């Protein structure tokens, strides 16, 4: 019986020790706050990148359209010059 109690006591102390060790190696509140802020910054950057990609795509489309319009105008000029015999 005594032996058994001894085993239980040892096991309890051992686990308690593990628990204590686990607690003692946790990051501090300040460090956790730093991590949270870093996560927020990353999330904000991801959003900015998504917005910028959208803006870039829209601008690329506009530029392509304007290039088309310019080419059309230049081609119209050629046709009109021919039509007028210039």
């Amino acid at each position: 019986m005594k032996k058994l109690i001894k085993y239980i006591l040892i096991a309890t102390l051992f686990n308690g020790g593990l628990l204590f060790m686990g607690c003692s190696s946790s990051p501090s509140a300040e460090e956790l706050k730093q991590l949270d802020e870093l996560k927020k910054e990353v999330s904000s950057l991801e959003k900015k990148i998504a917005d910028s990609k959208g803006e870039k795509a829209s601008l690329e489309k506009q530029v392509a359209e304007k290039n088309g319009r310019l080419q059309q105008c230049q081609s119209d000029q050629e046709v009109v010059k021919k039509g007028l015999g210039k």
Partner: protein
Amino acid sequence: MRYLYSLSIIVIFLFLTVVPLIAQEEMTKDQWQTEMANYKSKKADLESQLNQLSKDIEDLKKQSTKLDADIIACEDALYALIGVTRADVEAFDKELTQMENRVSELQRMSDAELVNYKDEMMKMDSRLKEMAQSKICLIPRYGDRVNTLQQKLLALLNSIQKEKTYTVGTWAKDRDCLWNIAKKKDIYANAWMWPKIWQGNRNLIKDPDIIKPKWVLKIPEGNQLTKEEKSAANSYYRKKAASTPN
């Protein structure tokens, strides 16, 4: 004794399983360091991406502004070639767009409805002929648009100007008289429209009570009698009444 032994095994087992679970719920210093390093690296990567994107956007904006200026210069030179101003071209474009929209509306109408807009279409056709003579039509995109619109309008006018005809059958077989012909679904679907057939075929029909088999009658368009047709019908009814003995 055995009971206590089993109990102690359970207690030890519980400690061994619960403690790591508790430890897992809270982050360890090592995990924190790893996460910090991961997020810092990710942040640096994202910042670099964002910088590149900002540069690309700036370049595109510059390109866009330059293209705007090039287009205006090119168009001004084009308009100068044909001796018109930007305002002239804009007014021409606006009028043409309005006509294109109107023709699209007309294209959705049935032939019967279209008949009511014949005058409008004739006016549009005449205006398009004037526009086709404009110098602005030397610019291919306007010349093409005017040409396309003229073709569409012509198709619409043709669809209502197709002359419908009816070949008269025999009374014995077909029971054909102006009243019965006008009543036919594919003619007017309205017997009271018979004077329209009469007036449209005055060269053949001298007396509306007499039509002959194999005559090819013109079926004038429209779904209402004109003043002249009504007047002719009234005159016919009066004569008929006068000749009928009391």
